């Protein structure tokens, strides 16, 4: 739909776009990304014809834009920018009917029946019918943007160009707006070419993206290119972590501000408090730990500070916790072991017994990558299984054993913690020892 070949252009004496190729396919949502000053708006204005092209060419719907009149162009292509200031008290309906400008014929250029039909349609799609007689300047920012979208859609364009259309909008209105556009793209095959500021929003809505850097594309292609942290760091000069959206198979980016990278080291032994009563156990760290767990509350990989186990029903007392379970094991049989292995402080807390679930909480003063976190989790599980085997307990009474691994994330970064590594072995050793002690304690009590 939009083809750009070897484009050079920009402001006088100073080309901002330097040799750029681009192909936006029909019915596609294409997002243009890049920091301020990378040339996004310049490229946009070159496509709308507001800035002169030095060399190369741009065609829309197979026709070169320089051969199209303004009216022909407006019939094929509509533009939605950031909020515009409207002078005088035009009503919403009057603003939308301006979108019919390129379609009006005859000397008097009144609104025809078809024009009215289209206007009604776009008002329905954008859900602004109720404001039709309201003055444009009286409605809210989100509604204004919907009205301007309706005006753009009233042009019945094949291509919609968006220049940061959700810039002033809150999350509700941003998503409302983009959902609407996506819906329109799906149902009518509208081609959308958008400048978006928010990389995560782009990842969720765009089919393809391009990263603009100093007037040319650094990368262009599927949304998955947003997983390339190095390229993003180069363009945006910010520490970027790429992750997957938890429920949607799209990358999401997380930025790390400077002040977090240089936090002071702290002493592991002084960083927690443990409260134990008859019916609960509460481990409280004074800063969040990187935690992987399968506990009822706090499952998954997260940052957590307070860890709990309850025996029987939860106590009435309001106890703050981020991760916790209700266990069938007796808390009085709890075993807590602290050790320093290979210069790494570790603490393990185990509850359990024959026929009861086994609950392991392992705290380590070290820095694990996500991969090492899972390695460590595996090492702990392997150690647990081996111990149970050694104790001739081939099946646990309940299938609800829990394991929680929490890391302080200070010190050198460890990338592997499988059972063959030093850390992995240490984890195994801790878990093995603690479970064994727990069971012998339990056995003593029974006898």
């Amino acid at each position: 739909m939009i083809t750009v070949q070897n484009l050079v252009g920009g402001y006088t004496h100073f080309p901002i776009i330097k040799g750029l190729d681009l192909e936006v396919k029909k019915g596609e949502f294409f997002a243009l990304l890049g920091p301020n000053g990378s040339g996004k708006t310049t490229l946009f204005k070159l496509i709308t014809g507001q800035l002169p092209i030095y060399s190369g060419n741009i065609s829309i719907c197979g026709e070169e834009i320089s051969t199209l009149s303004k009216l022909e162009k407006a019939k094929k292509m509509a533009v939605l920018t950031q909020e515009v200031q409207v002078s005088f008290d035009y009503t919403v309906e009057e603003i939308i009917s301006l979108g019919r400008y390129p379609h009006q014929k005859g000397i008097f250029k009144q609104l025809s029946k078809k024009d009215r039909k289209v206007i009604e349609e776009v008002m329905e799609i954008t859900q602004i019918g109720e404001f039709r007689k309201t003055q444009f300047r009286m409605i809210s920012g989100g509604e204004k943007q919907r009205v301007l979208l309706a005006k753009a859609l009233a042009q019945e364009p094949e291509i919609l160009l968006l220049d940061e259309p959700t810039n002033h909008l809150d999350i509700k209105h941003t998503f409302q707006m983009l959902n609407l556009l996506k819906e329109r793209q799906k149902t009518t095959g509208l081609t959308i070419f958008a400048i978006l500021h928010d990389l995560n929003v782009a990842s969720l809505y765009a089919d393809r993206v391009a990263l603009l850097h100093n007037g040319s594309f650094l990368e262009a292609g599927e949304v998955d290119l947003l997983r390339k942290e190095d390229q993003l760091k180069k363009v945006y000069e910010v520490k970027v972590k790429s992750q997957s959206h938890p429920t949607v198979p799209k990358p999401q980016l997380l930025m790390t501000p400077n002040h977090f990278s240089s936090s002071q080291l702290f002493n592991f032994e002084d960083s927690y408090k443990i409260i134990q009563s008859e019916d609960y156990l509460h481990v409280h760290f004074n800063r969040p730990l990187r935690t992987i767990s399968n506990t009822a509350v706090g499952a998954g990989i997260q940052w957590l500070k307070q860890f709990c186990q309850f025996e029987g029903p939860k106590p009435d007392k309001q106890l703050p916790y981020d991760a916790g379970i209700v266990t069938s094991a007796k808390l009085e049989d709890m075993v807590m072991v602290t050790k320093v292995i290979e210069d790494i402080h570790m603490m393990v807390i185990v509850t359990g017994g024959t026929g009861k679930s086994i609950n392991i909480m392992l705290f380590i003063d070290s820095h694990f990558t996500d991969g090492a976190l899972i390695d460590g989790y595996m090492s702990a599980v392997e150690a647990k299984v081996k111990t149970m085997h050694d104790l001739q307990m081939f099946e646990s009474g309940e299938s609800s054993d829990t394991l929680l691994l929490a890391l302080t994330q200070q010190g050198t970064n460890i990338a592997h913690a499988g059972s063959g590594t030093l850390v992995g072995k240490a984890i195994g050793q801790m878990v093995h020892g603690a479970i064994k002690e727990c069971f012998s304690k339990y056995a003593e009590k029974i006898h």
Partner: protein
Amino acid sequence: MRNLSIRKFSNNKIAWLYVISGGLLLGICLLGLFYSSVTVTVPTILHIILDKTLNMGWLSDVAKNEEMIIWNIRLPRVLLAFCIGASLALAGAAFQGLLRNPLADPYTIGVSSGASLGAVLVLFFQVSIVGLGSFTLPVVAIIFGLISLFIVFGLVRLSSKSLAIETIILAGIIVSAFIGSIVSLIISLSDRESMTQIIYWLYGSVGMRGWSHIQLILPFMLIGSFILIYHYRELNALALGEDAADHIGVDVKKGKTFVLIGASLLTGAAVAVSGSIGFVGLVIPHLIRLVTGPNHRHVLPLSMLVGGAFLILADLMARTIIAPKELPIGVITALIGAPVFALLLIRERFGKGANK
């Protein structure tokens, strides 16, 4: 169904506004023809007009002097007042739409001053451009009006990037003051008699002009009005700003040029025949917009009707308040217009404050 009935209602409302404005205009016309030192009855007035225009008179004995008064003095005066009021109001509405600025008016943005300088030059030096004959006066006034408009825009461009409301008015004041001093210079160089003439002319008046002046203004008024009303959609689109207008397919440069030319034709021609009459272009479109909303499809024609009626009424007041002497009509319009201008300026400020 509800929507349909609403639309019907609003269409009806607009139609009624045209009917009311037209009726108002006719009534004020008759009032203007009727009210004066010599009383001529309304049937006689109607008879004279119909007899002269359509040869459809029904009264047999009409005094020759009454016919003279109505046909040669009062009717041209009323028609001229209408033409000037309509032209200025329409030009004002167009300038306001173009500049997205409710404070713009031929008078406040300096076009009137430029045109009056042109007219004074023609009157004072008795110039006549070959081939134009008596049309030299309006043509020169129009050209001077356009030139001063470009100077104002040039000043605005140089001093600020946007066409900010205050900047335009300020540039208009600067240019007006400059041109005013040139006019004063010309006046002080002239003899006593032409001095009074020019000064009186500058205040604006529609009296003692006759049919010849209607001939002078009419062609420009027709062309200018046609150009402006033809471009009503472009004026509406410009309310979104030039970029957004461009995006919906408006040829902004062409549209702006036509609107500027049309509005300057109207202003220049009006100033050439009547002197500078201020604030008509400011007050009338504002009143119309209050009633119809800002859609130029209705604002432009209704401004013409009501602007014309307003100036006939202003002229009537000018010649009756201190009768038998006459006040300059510009005094009346300024007395009404300046307070409205101040009110608008304050409202504009408040509007801005509330938006941000």
